[in-house]
């Protein structure tokens, strides 16, 4: 674990302006920001841990809790909203038995509502990992979940 963090830290100048990029890389590598990595970042950049945590909790891209293997992001942009995204999100909540922002117990899925992903032509849009599903309706939700669940 430590090797991964030091490798990330080496990519950047050890200064405050690098911190957001570093946190992004950690988020990408681990799927969340493990507490011990934040301690290392604070030490390496010589800034208080409280400041690292304030950044980690201010920006939406960061999560302090681990996410599921297949993170589900339901787009809540305007185009998706007027085409029924809220209903799609609630259907996911019911099907997965979790609330928005939570992760299933087996860490297979996590569910989040996101801002516009910019595929408005395909609204309502759901992203599972990197894969985009367009024109999603409530009825299509069980099929999408099934696809990723083995």
């Amino acid at each position, binding site marked *: 674990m430590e090797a991964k963090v030091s490798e990330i830290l080496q990519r950047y100048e050890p200064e*405050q*302006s690098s911190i957001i990029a570093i946190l992004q890389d950690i988020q990408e590598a681990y799927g969340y920001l493990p507490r011990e990595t934040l301690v290392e970042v604070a030490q390496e950049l010589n800034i208080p841990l409280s400041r690292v945590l304030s950044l980690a909790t201010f920006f939406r891209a960061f999560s302090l809790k681990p996410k599921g293997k297949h993170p589900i992001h339901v787009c809540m942009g305007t185009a998706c909203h*007027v085409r029924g995204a809220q209903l799609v999100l609630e259907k996911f909540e019911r099907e997965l038995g979790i609330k928005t922002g939570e992760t299933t117990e087996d860490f297979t899925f996590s569910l989040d509502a996101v801002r516009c992903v*910019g595929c408005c032509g*395909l609204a309502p849009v759901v992203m599972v990992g990197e894969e985009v599903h367009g024109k999603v309706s*409530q009825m299509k939700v069980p099929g999408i979940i099934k696809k990723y669940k083995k």
Partner: protein
Amino acid sequence: MEEKTTPTRYRLHLMVCAGTACVSNRSFEIKEALEKELKKQGLENEVLVVTTGCNGFCERGPLLVVQPGNIFYQQLTVKDIPYLVEEHFLKGRPVQKLMYTPPEEKKPIPVLNDIDFFKKQVLIALRNRGLIDPEKIEDYIARDGYRALVKALTQMTPEEIIEEIKKSGLRGRGGAGFPTGLKWEFVRLASPANGGLKYLVCNGDEGDPGAFMDRSILEADPHSVIEGMVIGAKAIGAQQGYVYIRNEYPLALKRLTLALEQAREYGLLGKDILGTGFDFDIKVARGAGAFVCGEETALLASIEGRLGEPRPRPPYPAQRGLYGQPTCINNVETWANVPVIINRGAEWFSKIGTKTSKGTKVFSLVGKINNTGLVEVPMGITLREIIFEIGGGIPGGKEFKAVQTGGPSGGCIPKEKLDLPIDYESLTEAGSMMGSGGMVVMDEDTCMVDVAKYFLSFTQDESCGKCTPCREGTKAMLDILERITKGEGTEEDLQLLEDLAVSIKETALCGLGKTAPNPVLTTLRYFRDEYLTHIRDKKCPAHVCRDLNVYTIDEKICLEVGHGCDVCRRNCASEAIIGEKNQPHRIIQEKCIKCGVCYDVCKFGAVKVD
């Protein structure tokens, strides 16, 4: 500059759209299938497949344009490819059934420029759209790319560049519309503190929901932004630039990073650009998902690695910006306009548009509209032309209700104002704003109270919390709207909403807070009746506010027409429907969670909503 990568020996070029929406529609599989099939037919040395940036007509993806000839194919599937390759590219017979046919018409339109969606567009920022491979600098150069940079660096003084931009009338495309040339002049004249440097920033933190102009430009033509920035840097005297780009745009990030490397390799960026002794380089800063970072002072804080919170202005970034030094911030689309103005001249540019707003604007046309996509239109065009001619009107024969511009800072414009010529002033007068270019069309099934609530919950959620009016005020407004959509509102609430809106506008610290009440104010101004129906009759006319909906099943239709098909019961989310096959069904109101699935699945119109 050296040879082009696309030798002229190819008979045909197949331009496959690889914008985010088309990629989501698996356009790379189309590309592979094309290459495989061309090889099979022995055409690989005659026909070249090129991946381009966003074509704009996202609704119809995956897209393919055949050059020369501009033949437009749409909604392609991998299965279509063998036939297409054999018929068109081998035998020379274009395939009609894969072409675009306007809704309610029978004859397909083969040529891209003849399609209404493209006909009225004027391309400046998107000049290379669909014509170049964004990952090849040679393609950009072949289309006059970096010519303006050569001109600006070798034949013009900084003052002349600024004068040209000022004369062109170019204004900020990020939304506020500040004159670009004037901003450059301020930064040019400002002196850096303690012998420091001036900075130049490209704001690509496109946060408005329903807007993807900047993403498309960065994906389709990253060099146009880089070229604009180098010219700007020369004009203001900056040596370091930043492009701040949303984390949610991985493809744009990848293409921009590649373009920066290529520009450096070609001596168009970095030390001693074109041997003129001018140094300028660009770094990429990734956003981390905070809407407020689109605000310039918050954006700068976040580049410095601090919390993305705005600070009071003045001092403006032109005086004290990044690291306390004079900083010029312009939006992606603004930068993309710059090379064209330098190339073709301010006079040419200023002939397009209205008295106060020159040139074109890129809009993302989305929502309840037939032709969803990205359009670039001259300023002064009417909303009606955009929505009904370019956009092809509203799907399903529904009635147009409103168009929302300016994202969470803007407002909803009703049908009485459809003939409004678009420019910065006219949109502001209508209570909305130009904004970055999101244009969300709403029809009779959209509830305007819900839309106001949607935007306010967005700004409330994205409020950084630094100033009280925004943090607490938007929350108070949202609470009222929630009451109204639950049928618990009073008429006094409307006055309270207006009072709160005015004080937030006057006292909030930054643009996010100051403009947050706009969606509420415009809907109150144009759609007050809808608010009153929610309050007095406890009804949502568009059946969107679910707490006010009551679903029932017409047992007669259910039995006689649908023969108790049982589909609604099986799909019901909360086991609220009872009934057996061949028997009429019924909804137990206490159990109903009002998800509306039964209404959607009933093919016989037996489920009613009131």
